[in-house]
């Protein structure tokens, strides 16, 4: 318990958030059925049953991607983190967006239990949100993308280098949002919503199944 006391509230918040994101992203991947369900195993997190990837590469991808965000989240630089599902042309089909706001001026100690309570509700809601999502086309890929408020300074840090600038293709029309869950607490605000292409969006050639 002692190590927490030495950390700044933001460090503590970021640590909790990162852990949560790793679980939540795995849950999304599981929810979308990207991989057969055998690729996941049941684990317990925040006293909830969640899924964890069994394949080391998948697990590492999610883990390293999210933990690479830690220093940026701590500084409040990350605005959104998204799990993007896109078709073979690289056009997104569905995006799960976590909008993050870490309170940088929050000074007192972060109570993990308080955050946990709110964050848990995300995982609960996620597990029943399948009806809100779209059926994905048969051939698709996914990735984790983070949106920064400003360009990160060049850093020697290895973790940081894992994050490369990207120019993911966007929709031409503003997407449709379906909020899933929001929490706002003093140290941290998180919102999760799904983005779908708007109805007037030109259909991708591959078509949906």
């Amino acid at each position, binding site marked *: 318990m002692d190590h927490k006391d030495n950390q700044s509230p933001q460090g503590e918040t970021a640590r909790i958030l990162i852990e949560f994101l790793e679980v939540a992203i795995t849950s999304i991947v599981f929810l979308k059925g990207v991989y057969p369900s055998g690729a996941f195993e049941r684990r317990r997190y925040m006293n909830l049953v969640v899924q964890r990837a069994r394949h080391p590469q998948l697990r590492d991808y999610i883990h390293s991607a999210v933990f690479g965000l830690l220093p940026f989240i701590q500084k409040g630089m990350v605005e959104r983190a998204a799990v993007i599902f896109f078709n073979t042309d690289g056009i997104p089909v569905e995006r799960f967006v976590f909008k993050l706001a870490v309170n940088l001026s929050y*000074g007192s100690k972060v109570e993990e239990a308080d955050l946990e309570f709110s964050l848990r509700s995300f995982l609960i809601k996620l597990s029943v949100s399948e009806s809100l999502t779209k059926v994905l086309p048969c051939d698709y890929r996914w990735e984790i993308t983070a949106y920064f408020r400003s360009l990160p300074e060049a850093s020697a840090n290895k973790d940081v280098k894992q994050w490369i600038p990207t120019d993911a293709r966007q929709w031409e029309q*503003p997407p449709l949002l379906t909020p899933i869950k929001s929490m706002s607490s003093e140290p941290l605000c998180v919102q999760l919503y799904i983005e779908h292409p708007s109805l007037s969006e030109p259909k991708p050639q591959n078509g949906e199944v």
Partner: protein
Amino acid sequence: MSMESTRSDKSAKRSFNNNRNSASSNSNSNPSNKKKKTSQKTLGVAWGSNSRSSSRSSFSNSPFSNFGSYMVEKNRKLQNQFEAEASTSSHGGSGSVKPIFDGVSIFVDGFTVPSSQELRGYMLKHGGRFENYFSRRRVTHIICSNLPDSKIKNLRSFSRGLPVVKPAWILESVAVNKLLSWVPFQLDQLANNQPKLSSFFTLKRSSVSNSASTHAPCQVNPEAEDSSLKVGTSGDTYFSEVSEPFEHRKQISRESDDLVNENSNASLVEETAGSSGKPCEVAMGIPSNIDAEDESSVKNDLQSSHYQPTALVSSNCINNQNMKGSPSSMVSEPSNQSHSTLGDPNFVENYFKNSRLHFIGTWRNRYRKRFHSLSNGFNCTSSNIKASPLKTAIMHVDMDCFFVSVVIRNHPELLDKPVAVCHSDNTKGTAEISSANYPARDYGIKAGMFVRNAKALCPHLVIFPYNFEAYEEVADQFYNVLHKHGNKVQAVSCDEAFLDVTDSEGDPQLLASKIRKEIFETTRCTASVGIAGNMLMARLATRTAKPDGQCYIPPERVDDYLSQLPIKALPGIGHVLEEKLKKQNVWTCGQLRMISKDSLQKDFGLKTGEMLWNYSRGVDNRLVGLIQESKSVGAEVNWGVRFKDLKDAQNFLSNLCKEVSLRLQGCGVEGRTFTLKIKKRRKDAEEPIKYMGHGDCENLSHSTTVPVATDDVEVLQRITKQLFGSFHLDVKEIRGVGLQVSRLESTENSKQGLERNSLKSWLASASARTEELCKNSHVAKESSNRGCEGEGDETLGQLCGNSVGLSIQMDSNTSNGAACLNEVSVLPPLCHLDMGVLKSLPPELFSELNEIYGGKLVDLIAKNKGKTENINHTLSAYSHEKIEGAMKEGQAARLSSMVFQNEIPVENKAEQHIAKEVLAVSGAESFVPASGLKKTDLIPSSLSQVDTSVLQQLPEELKVDILEHLPAHRMQVFSPNVLLDPTEIPLEALGTKTAENNSGSKDFVLDNNLWVGIPPQWVDKFKVSNCLILNILAEMYYKSGSTGNLSPILQRISSVSLHQLDAFQDGWDEAMYILCELLKQYIKLKIELDIEEIYVCFRLLRRFAMKSELFIQVYNIVSPYLQALVGENYGGNLHMSLKD
């Protein structure tokens, strides 16, 4: 593996007589039957191999031939894992002592707090077992927090007769380090539905002695032939090991008899426990190496008797008291040296008896108990302070050299002689002077000086010892005087207090001299008074006033006064801060003012910086009456600590624990974190100059946190012992010991189903409270009768909160009645009665009350049945608002203060009302507004009967309250057009008020902060609107729990039929306009952080729009606005699907 196989052999043997199962296990090996069996087995996956576990014998090494054998293998592996972990993580240092959960095997069902993994950890650590799959044979307790209905209805098949217990059982057991009886921790759902269940279990256990039972002796060895026999033997071993006088043995033998009785006859338990409690506990106090098993067995049975919610609790209480007293005499050691821990067996006790710091430190608790109601009363009405910030007058009253003047008040001849107070009069002594009077101060004598130095300065200095009784007496007299003159008193210390005299008539200076005169007359000690606009300046003024004087600093003189004031004089600036500031060349407040706030905050931190900046300008925003809650409770002894051997130290520690436990109980708190602080002599340190002082020391500390807060002395002693052990110190080097308890929880909150404590404290507090009430009633009467009422209401509130024992309810009820009698000397009028309490009264009591009221109660209940829910909602909301109001500078406060000037009686009523509601939210509903307005059932059927001039004079909350009730009342009876009439009155009234108060335009639709405040402004507006839908919205605000979120309100509305609302055409446009405004402002408020909430609201609105014309229009107007804002913030549009 070999061990395992023998285990499975055994189990096979044990279940051998279970023919059906062993048959199935045999047939499992037969492949022809396999399919059928498997399909059958999958039915009980979660319950695993429960009834089929006998099949394990034949498959331990073969590949799984079916699900059953798989489960057997899995269970075996899990057990192996668990055992491996248990062997590594089990309790260090417990040695031969049996772990708490020996013989307990739990199965955790569903979601629990703490999680099943944590529970598993506890079991690992304390020698219990944890089963991943249910098995009737292996599991002894089922742990769960909640059960679905189906399982409750079919409890027998779910639990197989095993106890279903809340996880708190494990936590509490860990906390007290012994296995508690599970009975009080039984799942609430079960306890409620089947109150007889526990007795059923007990009976069952005694008849079938080798079934799985929960009392420790039985668990230790489930195969024991007879549990009563077991207890008998344990009593015997106990016997032989304890070498105490014959008397004790006798008691113990009786004790074991009683235990046998208990096992054979459940109904006897209650009686015997009451009588056996005392001797047993006394025996426990003896530090001998009793076998842990015996100890726990005896204790457990005792414990279970504590938990029986019967009338016998009172006798238990007495036993507990006895227990407290006796051990101390046994622990004591013969003395060979006085004044240190070496010599004095009651050192800790004596130390604190003679400690001035201890007196000051614990004084506050006494004060709180004495003046509790009064200080609460004014706390709630402190909204008035804010009402006119310019004219506040704060008084700081401080007794002049309190500790000396109290002692010499009986020695008038010493009045102008130098006198000091010190615990020792040895002229060569190194005792420190704690207080000196002014003549002595002239000689340069100061507090903290050694007596020998003081004597050197002034050879004829007279030294007196402390006289704590006198201090207490004078302090109480002092506060009596203060409370007489103002109800806003904040106690700082036993001899120092702040008064807010803003509301008092007359010149504060005259009042001050009156108070000083009265203090002198009653206590024969002088006091000084400082008066100013805030607490800081009042305190500084006292500095000037001293001794025996008074000083008033008017606002215009504040700057002058401060500019030359040395910074040290400011409260909050100590040595360190002073040094830092002096380094920056700041000596006076004037110089301090030249530093900018930013740089102050940069150098000294946010809070300190701001404080410095404010204080140097004479700014102090603290309100009189804000008392800080203490964060930790503890006791520390740094004088006279010398230990010869470990035993000395242990004795000392256990006494220290007793002291701390008493303090915790005194403060009504329990703590979770325990810190033991040790002062250890430095290697090269000499014997200190100060006699028996601690000298040069290293400060060491260790702390630990337990899962459940406690104030129990035994737990404290155990924890402290552990902590002390972790220091690995030579006890001869110890010069000081302190025990501090933090992470405090108030005792009332932390009781989760702990009948023992709540009952005990209940009984204790009930009697104390009645006394207190009587004591307070005349004090309260003198100042105002609000205090008395507050006290009464508090009892009432608690009554609702913890309706535990019937007899107790009766008790405090009568005391409450007595309080009322004191005040008005008649029964409370019918309308004063609280419905909630009435309804929860036991039938006998109710009928008795009903008789007293001549049968009117029944009618009242019937009448109120429909309304109470609504009213309770609104009232609790209001009290909430009022608390907020007290802190914020609100219009409400301003209004009420204005009314106060105009019509004092009305205001008084209102204040009472406020005080009551805050004190007893549940016990609300007892106010009677002034002339003409009665309670709900008596409320005039139309507002036209109400005297508008009275209405206008009422404070806003009250007025709105009345208006809220009126339409609801009439709606069923009257046609809507009557509605138009009354609503104009309040609007007009509001208009005039606000205009007078200059608080900005209150035009119906124009302002931009509909969501500001609690409740949000729109609620009040809508309530008085003449449009039905708006009224409903406001009403739903309260019904939905006043969360401040719109979605719960809308959700409630969806249950209302919306067609009818459209039929109501009046004010359509206006309603639409303000609804849109409301929504827009809400969107603006929430868009950034809570899009989910907005989404929910708009989906509901869409649903409304399908039924209501009004909502179609509203929706159409607002949704483009919404989408634009969403686009701005999220770069997309909200997906309003057409599916629903």
